[in-house]
């Protein structure tokens, strides 16, 4: 069985009726609140500017899945169900874990914009407490297609770390190679900090329906020294045309 083949544009089926015009109004108010409650000590917050690339592989902590997670994993067919086949991010961790693609940060007073070369994603994370979280996904691609598998995020600075908390994930896969699932109950906390010239990221997934204990992933990124973020322009895997080439003909049936 094959899933319907999609183009990038088909990803819009996930989308919502998000109104871009709402963003500045919500965020400016939240910035004031965040400032007042001292969430962002300006002297300590990490400077994430520049373009980064994964350095080494993501390191997985201990993974203890519940029966529900194991059942979801058992149903997963890598060759058919991996959202990457359709140029769709399977989860936040899937996007961080992709090698050889650029990642850029733009930090401003009230938000952090994370640009991922992979799938041309733009993830806009408001700064503040849980009240600033949008009721829409935080991530869309440059064509404007929203991706709810990367959930809705908000962030704050804690000392020298940027801490991003994400809720409202659509069902997807934290690890596409092994089918580790996520659900709407899943919460992700990403902590980002700088060590020398390395950007460190620790991502902790909690979901008591899926994991017996928090599932932790560690990543390191190095600065590339590049200044350009080229377009990725992902093309769907689309194996149909190829499989049809080898399909039995009337003569060979």
């Amino acid at each position, binding site marked *: 069985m094959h899933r319907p083949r999609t183009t990038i544009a088909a990803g819009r089926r996930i989308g919502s009726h998000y109104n871009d015009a709402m963003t500045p109004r919500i965020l400016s108010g939240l910035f004031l609140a965040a400032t007042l409650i001292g969430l962002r000590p300006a002297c300590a917050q990490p400077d994430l500017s520049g373009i980064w690339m994964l350095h*080494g592989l993501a390191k997985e902590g201990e993974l203890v899945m519940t029966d529900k997670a194991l059942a979801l994993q058992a149903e997963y067919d890598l060759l058919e169900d991996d959202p990457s086949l359709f*140029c769709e991010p399977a989860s936040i961790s899937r996007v961080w874990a992709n090698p050889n693609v650029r990642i850029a940060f733009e930090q401003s007073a009230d938000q952090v914009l994370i640009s991922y070369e992979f799938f041309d994603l733009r993830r806009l994370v408001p700064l503040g407490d849980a009240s600033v979280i949008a009721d829409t996904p935080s991530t869309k691609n440059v064509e404007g297609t929203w991706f709810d598998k990367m959930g809705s995020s908000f962030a704050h600075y804690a000392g020298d770390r940027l801490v991003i908390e994400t809720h409202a994930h659509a069902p997807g896969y934290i690890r596409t190679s092994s089918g580790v699932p996520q659900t709407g109950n899943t919460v992700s906390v990403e902590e980002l900090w700088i060590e020398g010239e390395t950007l460190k990221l620790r991502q902790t997934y909690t979901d008591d329906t899926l994991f017996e204990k928090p599932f932790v992933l560690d990543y390191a990124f190095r600065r590339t020294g590049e200044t350009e973020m080229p377009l990725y322009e992902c093309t769907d895997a689309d194996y149909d045309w190829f499989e049809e080439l080898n399909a039995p003909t009337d003569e060979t049936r």
Partner: protein
Amino acid sequence: MNRLLIIAVYLLPILADAHHSTVANFTRDVIAVDGVIEKVRFQNPHASILIRNTDDSGKDIYWLVETGAKTTLERKGITLDVLTVGSKVTATGLKGRRANTMYLQEIRFEDGRVFAPDAPSVTIRGKEIREELQQMAEDFVNLRMMQGFLHEMPLEEAYRLQDDMVEIMRPMLGEVVGYKTGGHDSGPGFPTFPPDGIRAYILSGMLREDGTAIRVQDSVKGFLEADFAFRVGNTSINDAETDLELLSGLDAIVPFAEVPDPYYDPDTRTVNGTIVANMSTRMSFTGEPVAIEATPEWLERINNMTFAVLDENDQVIQEGQFKGWYEPMKVVRWLRDQLRESGKELKPGQLLSLGNIGIIRQIHEGSPRGPAYESNQFRLEYYGLKDDGPATVTINIDR
């Protein structure tokens, strides 16, 4: 034209560089298919080549040969222009879990040309790189000036080429007996090191016994460097988290000094070149190991040790200490992590040289880094490690 060959189960180091799903989408079985290139798709997340194979009955069977992302290939300066439609080729790669697919290792043309974008040492571009590495290795071993390495590439790829370089050097310089590091963020950096540190191999043929006399002509740009090394005691170090856990994976401090020989064409020296050339590691000198224990007291001793270099008349040339600028366990951790990220696990008995600890003397006249050392001995002594006197390692200079 009808060959489909299951070759072997082996793995070139392509998967570390591959799109993550690649690891799961392809088996480790290496297969080869003869055929004609029918189509080439240069795109993200995977470029691919369609090859038509004709079986014994004359039936056409199509194979989809996938390779890296367009952006990854472009960053390496690789295009698929060489893969012209209609070319007769043999494609070798990892058998896909999806029928009639493979992950490209190499495409060999009828005229003998080879294209293998993920294994630079055997690619058309990499064929030149392989020759370059061979030349660098021969130049280094034979005390000739090495050309630098003017290729832009991620550090991971430079380290893979360092692996290739070491493979080339192993027949001349022996087996891997350890690793060395330098330029990390606890200790001195260097302009042609990556900003967060560098590492290289120590091969058995580089080791010299304590007190060995070297001649000035044994190196070209060599210098005497005071270092500090540990010996791996057991594999627990690969997963150690705390400093004490790291220490319990080590069984000895090895007094260590070395003579690197960075004889590069000065106009072409690069960070990648320093990595690929294995940090131009020439000679490593080891003293009597000092057994250590995984205790807070030993951590204290290590962090607070002092050291000095003396000449043959027991005159102190320079003194130093770790406290305040150099954290040995931080460097061990960095080196361990860097090796793990490169897929390497530490083994008992291996040396871990933590690099320059701040005392360097030039052997040759005319170095921009200082005057030539005139004494006949470079004796490094560590204080505070042993109760019965300093731990030492000595390089003698036979003039």
